[in-house]
């Protein structure tokens, strides 16, 4: 069995405890407008184009059977309406200005990467993080990876939006050691507006899942999630939750901008900048009287 994987990131330090390898699945059921990994949203492969790497060899023009590569006003552009995502142009692009996001990989191919850093997981309390896209959209394959990791003594965490019904995800959830779940917006309508779906299932799942340990996270997006009322409501929801390790406030990640450009997509948050360390600290202090453990990422 093979599955579409966006990327595998070794020496990952921000996707859970210790030193980790993060496996990014491809395809998400939410479409958060600030997502810094836009190439993981689609369930299909995506053609990405980085003009700065282009050496102007012209192979992509001669290779493409559909004429998707064009010159407009002296600039190389990709007509996405003509692109079938066949990947032939990227195969010929040795400079890697054109690359395909999404690679069919078997569990064994993924484990080949994962097991190389086992010594680092063991020493740091780290392991593997299955991330997205949305990992719960891929539970069958993710379950196989989780089982393979456990067979080799490697801990498994997931980064998820928990937006699928509990019954569907239960077999997989039972196989993981840590859930890092995002609840971005407490108000249902606002959640729909910015992510494309309701947050009802997410909140139900957060309440219902009592094992394994959980970290609930909110990315701080100015004018959207970074509002006192929103954060307090989420903190209140988490109050008394026994398997909660902590509630984590994540700073905005601006690194997705070049990816949006490579996909010819509009980034509504391209001008937004992360909060300063002091501002992040202030958010943490704001929630200090909520009775739950707060962690702030700089």
């Amino acid at each position, binding site marked *: 069995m093979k599955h579409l994987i966006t*990327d*595998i*990131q*070794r*020496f990952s*330090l921000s996707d859970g*405890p*210790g*030193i980790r390898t993060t496996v990014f699945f491809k395809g998400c059921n939410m479409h958060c407008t600030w997502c810094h990994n836009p190439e993981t949203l689609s369930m299909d492969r995506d053609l990405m184009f980085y003009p700065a790497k282009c*050496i102007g*060899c012209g*192979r992509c023009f001669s290779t493409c059977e559909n004429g998707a590569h064009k010159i407009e006003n002296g600039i190389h552009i990709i007509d996405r309406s003509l692109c079938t995502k066949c990947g032939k142009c990227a195969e010929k692009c*040795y*400079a*890697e200005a054109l690359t395909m996001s999404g690679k069919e990989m078997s569990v064994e191919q993924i484990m*080949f*990467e994962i097991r*190389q*850093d086992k*010594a*680092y997981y*063991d*020493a*740091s*309390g*780290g392991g593997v993080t299955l991330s997205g896209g949305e990992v719960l959209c891929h539970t069958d394959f993710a379950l196989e990876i989780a089982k393979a990791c456990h067979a080799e003594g490697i801990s498994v965490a997931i980064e998820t939006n928990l937006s699928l019904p509990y019954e569907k995800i239960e077999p997989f959830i039972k196989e993981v050691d840590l859930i890092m779940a995002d609840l971005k917006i407490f108000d249902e309508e606002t959640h729909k507006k910015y992510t494309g779906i309701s947050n009802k299932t997410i909140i139900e799942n957060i309440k219902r899942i009592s094992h394994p340990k959980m970290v609930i996270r909110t990315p701080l997006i100015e004018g959207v999630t970074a509002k006192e009322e929103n954060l307090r409501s989420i903190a209140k929801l988490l109050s008394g939750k026994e398997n909660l390790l902590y509630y984590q406030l994540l700073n905005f*990640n*601006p*690194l997705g901008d070049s990816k949006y450009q490579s996909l010819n997509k509009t980034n509504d948050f391209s001008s937004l*900048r*992360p*909060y*300063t*360390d002091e501002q992040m600290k202030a958010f943490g202090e704001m929630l200090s009287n909520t009775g739950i453990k707060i962690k702030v990422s*700089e």
Partner: protein
Amino acid sequence: MSKIKFINAYPADKYYSYDERIALLRARKISQTEEKAKLGGADEDDYGVIVQDEFKFELEPNHENGSIYGYRAWSENYSRLLASHPLYCDPLDAFVGKGFLFMERLRPKQYKWNPDYPFDDLKKIFDKYNIISGIDNCHHFTPDLEIGFALGWGGILKLLKTERTKHDESHFEFYDAEITVVEAIIEFLYRISDELLELSKIEKNPMLSENLFEMSRVNRNVAEGKPETFREAVQWLCWFSMLSRTYNRGSAGGQLDEMLRPYYERDTEKGILKDDEAVFYLACLFLQDSRYFQLGGPDINGKDMTSRLSYLALEAADKINIACNLTIRVHDKMNEDFFIKSIEYLFKNKQGWPRYSSDNALVEGFMRCGYSKELARRRVAAGCHWMCIPGMEYTMNDTVKVNLLRTFEIAYEEMMLEDEPSTSKLWELYRKHLKIAVDATGNGIIHHLRYQTKSQPELILNLFQHGLIEKGINITDGGANYYNMCVDGSGIAMVADSFAALEQRIEQEHKITYAELDKHIKANYEDEDGEYIRQLMLHSARYGGGNTLGDSWAVRIKDLYTELVRDLCNQHKGINFIPGFFSWSNTILLGKSVGATPNGRKSGEPINHGANPCSNFRADGAVTSMCNSIASIQPSYGNTAPVQLEVDPGIAGDKEGILKMAAMVKTILSTGNTLLNINIIDTDKILEAHKDPMKYPDLVVRVTGFTAYFAMLSPNFRQLVVNRITSVNPKSIKDK
């Protein structure tokens, strides 16, 4: 140009705390660094040398070519130099001991080696294969400074004179030269003491005047006598640094905390030394010279040596916060608290110190050479990438480099003359040529050992070798207890990537033929489609990628190189040859002699740094992958193939991050790696400093094994450091 005396330079009525003194001394150090940088970059250690124009010295040659050779010329010139060498004195400092020059560099560059002992045939091979032979290179082994502590200069002089009476005249040249040197040192130190006394009378600030008076007293005590107090011991170390540097850039400090511990414990017990004072003295020691010191680690029985003084040394380095070369030896029974503290300092100051070595990997490796575990444990970190038993070994560490890439190029060119080129044929030819290169390097080392005394005797470091004075011979003539000759290979990643690119693109994927590729290589990839093909080769499976084709080739090359270097032990009985992979700052020099290569490297571009993979070795730049690859190419005979790691400061911004980094360091060193150098560098800052180095004159980077001020490096070398950093930290997250 810097002044060399600062008498009455400070307000007469001001009292200075230790912290204020350190801050002012540090500020002066930074301004002196700016002055050095303005005079032009130098891709080497800082050495603590002061650039000034008040003192000039000219050699009196004993050869028509203008150079100096042998015992007498070196000793007499050195004696004359010390007689005229002025004092550098800052009354804020606890010590004197700044030097201005290295005598060995005053020789005409082209006549360093004594022409009466030519090696023309070997030189032809060295030139062909671009080998840095190490012939005439000096120091690069470690003195045991505790000999100096035990005897003092006066005791050493007495021993020299006594031993002279026990030997026949064939040893008189040695003894007479050494006696000349030590007498000159003692006279010099007395003069310094006298001068300090006079300066104390002139200085108007009572506190600083008193300090100068005390300095005078301390210097008088150590001019002949052995140091008795903590302050005297550190002053003795400062002078040793200056005296050995001034002679021939002589190297290496040793196990600092253990060396000074008896003095610290004695003085604190007597109540004449407090911790803040000890920290101040140590900070002044680090300010005086960027010499290599080891802290912590196991004693010969494996017991951890971390003491209160180990902590104070870290605290002192933290306070002075300049280019320090401190190494923590990581071992199974390590003091965890001290280790974590060191990681905190590493990330707090971002100055590339400390670095870390692996006791297990080094000890197991050295024992494979036939040495005991106890001796292996005594081999302390003492140079850029090297270890040495203080006072026991002669090593030529870090002076010998076999250019593995140039050797590859010769083999490749020979293969392309044949009908059916292939990687298997290339491997056969590579083996043949590498053997020629390594054998010639071994013969070069033997030539150096045989005749170095006729060129440049080690008149300072000889004095701190166990049993050498009693033997009455220079260290290269059999004066050392052990001869463990360091033979480093340089450019392994480039060679591995070249083999891998050929195998992958030509033999596996059939994307190009040997003939087609060769056409582009000969044209330096600048012909039609050249850049396109270069990109093809450049993006093949590289060393550092994690069990890639490039990684497999690197292991094969490591095995071959290790076998050939170890075979030198059979060719030259009684001498141990130890392989390692390191380039020092020769990456630019060694790359210049090599044309375009199959890994997509263009003609003249630098070789890879040490054992590190080439830039862009892996899309995610995963340091775990890189470190695993470097672990796989350790020759494992006690010398190193160091990991040079560049880390963004953001990853250890809190306690959790520190603990992650601590786990990372331990794992890197428990998976076979021997030595770990870490740069904590903000990508944005280094890019800004690259544009305008004087914007950050205090920015320190760990260049190779040594730390240096970024502003001091040449533009080409700065570019290499920047490339290394951006290949693992391609983007900044500090875009706020």
